């Protein structure tokens, strides 16, 4: 009996210390969405139970190995204890009740996460290898996701190719993005700040780099940003290069083609127009309108040297006018 009391006290002590230690470490990132609060509540409950169970298993093992260790010269077997049915029933029934409670709480918190605000703003999200683009209700497309604080938005997400997954760690929620169907991501940001959406489902070579900025700002700042984007969009729509730039954003071209000379999956567009391009067969070609139009409409016709092994660019469904706009935009990138 004495041993059980000592072990009981030690279990409680070790459990408490584990719990305090784990809390001290700040295991989770900042809580930046209303949905993160129920998630973290359930998580903290998990940590309570984990701390207790860790102590409950480890303490008696260590205690027994030390206290009941074999004395010198003792060659007899240990005590014959075959089992104890009521103990076995106890440690079947109690865990069963605990997991049922956890399953109920899991469903309950899931319900809290999915509370729908009918006035939530809708933003269309398109994922392709390896870029995100966001189309706002005001009609323009951006590479950045801007959200007003304390207002629910629902992201209507779809993929142009393979499966991706939308994850902002500070929002806690993750949702896969699939080709051929629309999945919802409902979030209420509660903390102003700059975050990053990171693709969480392996989607090919540049999966690691499939990120986009997420900016949560006050309603006033958000409105100002929307107004600025709208007017920039309508100005840009007047010129071919402006339309080309908008297309490059909404199609996600810049996921693979940089505009600052850095090498991504595809050749950079900086200084491309009019330059001499060396192809994989060793020949060179001038990057004129004809070459660029061909490369956009039939990406595999000519492969640039050094890009033979990267994933082939998909064909995009574009009109001739749109392709000309893109070329006009590329021509501006000196």
């Amino acid at each position, binding site marked *: 009996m004495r041993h059980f009391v000592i072990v009981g006290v030690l279990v409680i002590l070790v459990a408490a210390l584990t719990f305090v230690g784990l809390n001290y470490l700040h295991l989770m990132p900042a809580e930046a969405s209303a949905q993160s609060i129920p998630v973290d509540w359930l998580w903290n409950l998990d940590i309570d139970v984990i701390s207790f169970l860790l102590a409950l298993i480890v303490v008696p093992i260590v205690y027994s190995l030390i206290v009941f260790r074999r004395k010198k010269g003792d060659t*007899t077997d240990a005590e014959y204890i075959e089992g104890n049915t009521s103990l076995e029933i106890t440690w079947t029934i109690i*865990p069963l009740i605990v997991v*049922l409670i956890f399953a109920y709480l899991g469903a309950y918190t899931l319900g809290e996460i999915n509370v729908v605000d009918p006035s939530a703003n809708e933003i269309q999200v398109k994922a392709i290898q390896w870029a995100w683009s966001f189309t706002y209700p005001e009609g323009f497309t951006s590479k950045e996701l801007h959200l007003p604080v304390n207002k629910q938005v629902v992201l209507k997400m779809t993929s142009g190719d393979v499966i991706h997954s939308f994850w902002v760690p500070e929002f806690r929620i993750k949702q896969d993005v699939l080709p051929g169907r629309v999945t919802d991501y409902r979030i209420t940001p509660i903390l102003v700040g700059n975050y990053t959406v990171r693709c969480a489902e392996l989607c090919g*070579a540049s999966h*690691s780099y499939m990120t986009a900025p997420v900016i949560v700002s006050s309603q006033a700042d958000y409105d100002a940003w929307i107004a600025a984007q709208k007017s920039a969009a309508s100005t840009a729509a007047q010129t071919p290069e402006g339309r080309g730039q908008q297309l490059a954003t909404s199609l996600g071209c810049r996921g693979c083609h940089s505009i600052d000379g850095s090498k991504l999956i595809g050749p950079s567009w900086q200084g491309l127009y009019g330059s001499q391009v060396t192809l994989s067969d060793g020949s060179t070609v001038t990057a004129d309108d004809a070459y660029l139009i061909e490369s956009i409409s039939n990406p595999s016709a000519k492969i640039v040297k050094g890009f033979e092994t990267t994933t082939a660019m998909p064909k995009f469904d574009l009109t001739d006018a749109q392709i000309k706009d893109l070329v006009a935009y590329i021509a501006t990138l000196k």
Partner: protein
Amino acid sequence: MKKFFSSALWHGLLWQAIGWAIGASFVTLIRVLMGLNPFATFGFTEPAWVFGGLVGAISFLAGSGALTDWFKWAKGEETPEHHHDPDGWEKYINVSLDHKVIGIQYTMSALLLLVVGGSFSLVFRSELAQPGLQFLTLQWYNTLMSLHGMVMIVGILLGIAGVINYIVPLLIGAQDMAFPRLNAFSFWLAPPAAILLLSSMALGGFDTGWTGYPPLSVRAPVGMQMFFLGVIVAGWSSILGGLNTIATVMRMRAKGMTAFRLPIFVWAAIATSLISATATQLIGLSFQLVMFQRLFGMGFFDPAKGGDPILFQHLFWFYSHPAVYVFILPGLGIISELLPVFVRKPLFGYRWIAMSSLGIALVGFLVWAHHMYTSGMNEYLRVPFMYSTLLVAVPTGVKFFSWVATIWRGKVFGPYPTAFLFILGSIIVFLMGGLSGPPNATVATDLHLQDTYWIVGHFHDTLFGGYLLPFFAAIYYWFPKATGRRMNETLGRIHFWLMTPSFIVLTLLMMRIGLLGMRRRIADYDASLGFGIYHVIMTIAAFVIALSVLIFFVNFFRSMTKGEPATGNLWNSRSPEWQVASPMPVHNYDQPFEVVGDPYDYGLADSVYVRFANKETGGRN
């Protein structure tokens, strides 16, 4: 060398290469006749590579001689019941029907594949030590990361087959497995499967992870198909091995060995075989559908053709979740089997532990969609899967509590033998894996945890604690049975004390950065997240683990010839295989034995477990 070039292994490899070339040329010829282009980026076209790979694998089996007896039977020729194996090491690279030889063949192949898969992880682990790309390309990173997963899985399956093959017939008093030729056939499927898997590296690799989700797997290079073929062939081996184990335990037990007098490891072997014999088909099926989608343009998982990518995930996880229990149930069985021997006490709650293995196997079939909470499947479906997943905690808890009760008041002979250290390490590491499980089971928290390094840490803990550490315990424990010599204890302890703490550090840090935003399967990470220092420590830990494995191998090979002789009942076990001299005779027990008591009655005076026909031995000799 001459012995090698006349071995079944060498003939099989030769035939595989020839069969591969013939199969590929055949398809290429048909393509020429049909006016299709005969060659592509990697020489042959994709259909030619796939058909060649399949013909090559079958040719290996024919060339190695694993089919010879069956061919003879088909022709009406008689074959001897037993084949006489050569005496030296060469019996391990030739077709043998002896379950002990096959068990060692499996175990050695498993160790080889675990080393290969582990080396892959060292390569990409080093790449991750610093942000940015240092020496791997993105495609190579993905290929090595994906192959690490599947090569380790196949290595684990072979290791399980090795332990089951070697030990189950000895534990139940059988002369051999129920179907010795099928047993040999199952083993000889493994080398061509491994070659197919690894050949994917030469054919462009693949970037999908071991899960091979379409549409990504539909777009990957030809290497993807070699991966699929390799898994299908390895899965075949696993299904047949499972069937053989079930038949052996059903039909070939010693007299008096009733269900609740079976050694507990046999219960685990049965539970694991039930899963592998009935669920493996589903991973083969799901991969085959993707193969056909690639080869014939069928739209199973292509939304543009009315298919659905989520369907694949259901089919895939219907095997791949129970597969986890295929890996861990034998490991947990080893823990339960060895614990009473070392603590000199009965196994606490034997029947409950036996039933919990079956319980885990059964519930394991009903939980697959917990891998898919974020996949976009029907939202409400997530709730029932949360309930079923959490239920797994109940039988697992029974095992833990029973182990604690077994250890309680136990008296271990000191200094602790290496095998016992590994058993303790298994319990602790598997506990870490188990306790990090429930947060993944509840949907709300999993929405954050899914596809992060938290998950990576969690499942590495379950597989190390549930498989790898018990596997090492089994090797240290039964090595004297196979060789008549014991492994060096000092080197064994160094192995343990280098491996286990490093591994705990490694996985705790994985979980730590996963919670903070480190995604899994990424070749590069954002330096601004501040994970650099964690990755440096994890990389060092990984190399310490590698060093410990190196020490293990030095010990392993040295002890075969130079180890301290140990021919008797080294562990003072009640189990039948220790009542006869080591190494085990070719046809196992010279005298049949009868089971007259319970297996783990340590501490009960005058209790006997097995009685040989003319020689009384048993619990305390």
